[in-house]
């Protein structure tokens, strides 16, 4: 057994899975409350990544950074989460709010419209070219090259560590928020039954805005995490990521937050191991075949509960 390959694939799968999980969390939160498949979520992730890139260039560009890496990361996350969150709130306010009681598929198409708009506006303004965080060559700390050594001679780069640890921190914070705070409780109540929540005096509008803000902020953060590890920023990056996040959210049991994390990690690991051990050409086919089997065994997702239908 080639342990080096195994451990490397494991690290690679968990890193990529963490990014998926973060996007999926936001997806799942919004779904839980509005039962809306927010296709524009992936584009918020894209905007978050571009905000991070903007911060890097404000501080002198990747090859001539003028500030400490820790400070840089802090500012990047702060700005991308704020920017992503505000964008999400705006989308909710201007595109989805009027459709709250419409047939479920109407906001879905609106979400597609928002996604078209964001993706192409980004191309118009920022250009279609791939741009790079270049975290391999940051002057004061090449976080993508510096690494810890793991058993079997495998390595884990600082960038991967930042992604994994960052994702865990955000997930814990989110769980605490949802479980412990007043707003979190209101969110859970609203997602359980919106009308009943409204009757109990919960300000549903406010809860929805908060949900969109947090979910989109996570997507914005995911954009930065992704690019710290994988560099590239381009206008259409949100499409594929959004598709995988949607997949992760549903496979884990949509509306269920730990489920999204499990789903994201499952996809990341399935990708890594099918490339490593089976075939890189048919990687996607293998991943989707695995997911189909998972869904057939657990039709409501891995951690999802079968919905009880009310008559």
């Amino acid at each position: 057994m080639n342990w080096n390959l195994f451990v490397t694939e494991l690290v690679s799968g968990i890193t990529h899975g963490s990014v998926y999980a973060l996007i999926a969390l936001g997806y799942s939160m919004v779904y839980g409350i509005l039962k809306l498949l927010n296709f524009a979520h992936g584009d918020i992730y894209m905007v978050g990544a571009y905000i991070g890139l903007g911060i890097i260039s404000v501080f002198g560009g990747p090859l001539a950074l003028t500030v400490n890496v820790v400070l840089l990361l802090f500012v990047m996350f702060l700005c991308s989460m704020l920017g992503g969150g505000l964008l999400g709130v705006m989308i909710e306010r201007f595109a989805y709010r009027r459709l709250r009681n419409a047939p479920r598929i109407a906001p879905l198409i609106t979400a597609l419209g928002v996604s078209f708009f964001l993706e192409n506006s980004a191309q118009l303004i920022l250009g279609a070219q791939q741009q790079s965080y270049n975290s391999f060559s940051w002057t004061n700390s090449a976080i993508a090259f510096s690494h810890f050594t793991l058993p079997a001679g495998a390595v884990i780069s600082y960038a991967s560590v930042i992604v994994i640890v960052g994702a865990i921190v955000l997930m814990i914070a989110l769980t605490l928020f949802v479980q412990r705070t007043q707003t979190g409780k209101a969110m859970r109540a609203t997602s359980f039954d919106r009308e009943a929540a409204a009757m109990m005096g919960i300000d549903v509008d406010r809860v929805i805005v908060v949900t969109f803000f947090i979910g989109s902020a996570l997507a914005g953060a995911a954009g930065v995490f992704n690019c710290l590890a994988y560099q590239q920023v381009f206008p259409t990056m949100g499409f594929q990521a959004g598709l995988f996040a949607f997949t992760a959210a549903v496979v884990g049991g949509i509306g269920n937050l730990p489920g999204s994390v499990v789903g994201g990690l499952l996809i990341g690991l399935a990708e890594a191991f099918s490339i490593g051990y089976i075939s890189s050409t048919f990687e996607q086919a293998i991943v989707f075949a695995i997911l189909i089997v998972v869904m057939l065994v657990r039709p409501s997702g891995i951690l999802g509960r079968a919905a009880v239908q009310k008559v």
Partner: protein
Amino acid sequence: MDGERDSNLPARPDEAQVPRVGVDEWVATHEGRLRRNRLVAELERVPRPAFYLAFGVAAALLPVITNDGYIIRVGFDTLLYMLLALGLNIVVGYAGLLDLGYVAFYGFGAYSYAMLASPKFGLHWDTLAILPVVVVASALLGFLVAIPSRRLVGDYLAIITLFFLQLFVTVYQNGNRISILGLTRGYDMTGGPNGIPGVDNWDLGGLKISSLNGYFYAALITFIVLLGIVYLIDQSRTGRAWKSLREDPLAAELMGMPVNRLKLIAFACGAAIAGLTGTLFAALNTAVFSADFDVPTLIIVYAMLILGGAGSLGGVILGALVVNVSLEFLRTPGHATWVFYVVVVATLIARIRPWRWLAVVLGGTVALGYIVHAIAASAWPRGTHGDVSVGGWLGSWLKGWELHPTNPMFIGNIAFVILVFAVLALTLLQGWQRRVAMIPTLYLASFAWENRLVIEPSITRLILIGVILIVLMNARPQGLLGTSRVEIV
């Protein structure tokens, strides 16, 4: 003839007690409370098939009116989209199943046709033999996909069909290296990324279709015939059963409907139509490539169906027309500029009352333009030396009214971003504030259009399609020709 009672007829005595299936009482009586003009009432009296036929005749006239290959090609593409939307309408509009794997059947049809009628495997089957084979095979494939997913509901069904589509695309795209469990050498089944070229034309028992006009009519006749069939199915027991399944699966099951079988039939019908459409596609393009059967196509077809109104056959036609024709129309910057100004002015005329406010807004915008132009001409010489996108009197007028800086990329981008925020802010304002704020916004819109959007028409048209989807869905959530429903919780 359930859904289309004449509103002029006297109400049944039990009307008030029996709202239609899945329809909220308030909504059900909504039509009666509307004051309709006579034209609409008369139109509703005409049987639906007459409209479909009228559409068929009007469409058949297209190649007679014009000799322009491009227009006919766009007509053909639109008909293909209509066919796809028609099949999807059965699955989504009637049976209410969110099938995100739909275009896989389209691809399956196209690839099957290409494999059976091209030099790829040296097979050149007769079209009349291929068509039934493809239709039946697509329907069977639809069945196969539906069987494992029949227990899934809502978004779980959506995701598993999406997996299926992704699986399919991967196989099409890498099908030139298919080896069995990695043990055998790679067999070339689909040509991989090179696709299958050299596909034969349709040959219907000696009637060889080789011209674009021929394919246009083949698509049109196929569409009209299928539209008729779907209409009849819609009116039949199965059609009504699908709709009750869509409205409430649980209730439908309680009423003794074979819910699982209904789902399977819906999937198979949709898949069969998509497969047939695929053969037309492959034959006209004389080649198939996997790129055409991926998620972007799916999105477009969904947008057409929902925009037109899911569950409405007229909506299928209208949705495909609106989306595809506007996509093509916006391709040319000259057209797009006209459309832009005409739509803006028409919207203003239609929406602003009283008239004097309209005069204020339009006059204010024009005046603002001249003032800014006059200031810029002296203070910022670069600002008036750029190029105008459109010719004719509109172009020369714009030249004297609008600022056209040289190298407008950067300033155009900024104007675009500000414009987006300005339009959003406009929706928050009310009354006179909104109308006054409209003046600079309109000017800004024209500026951003002239100096940035029109320079990149390919990107702009996709931005506009996004805007159209958002605006139309917000204005009519049920789709253009859909009937409004309130979901009962």
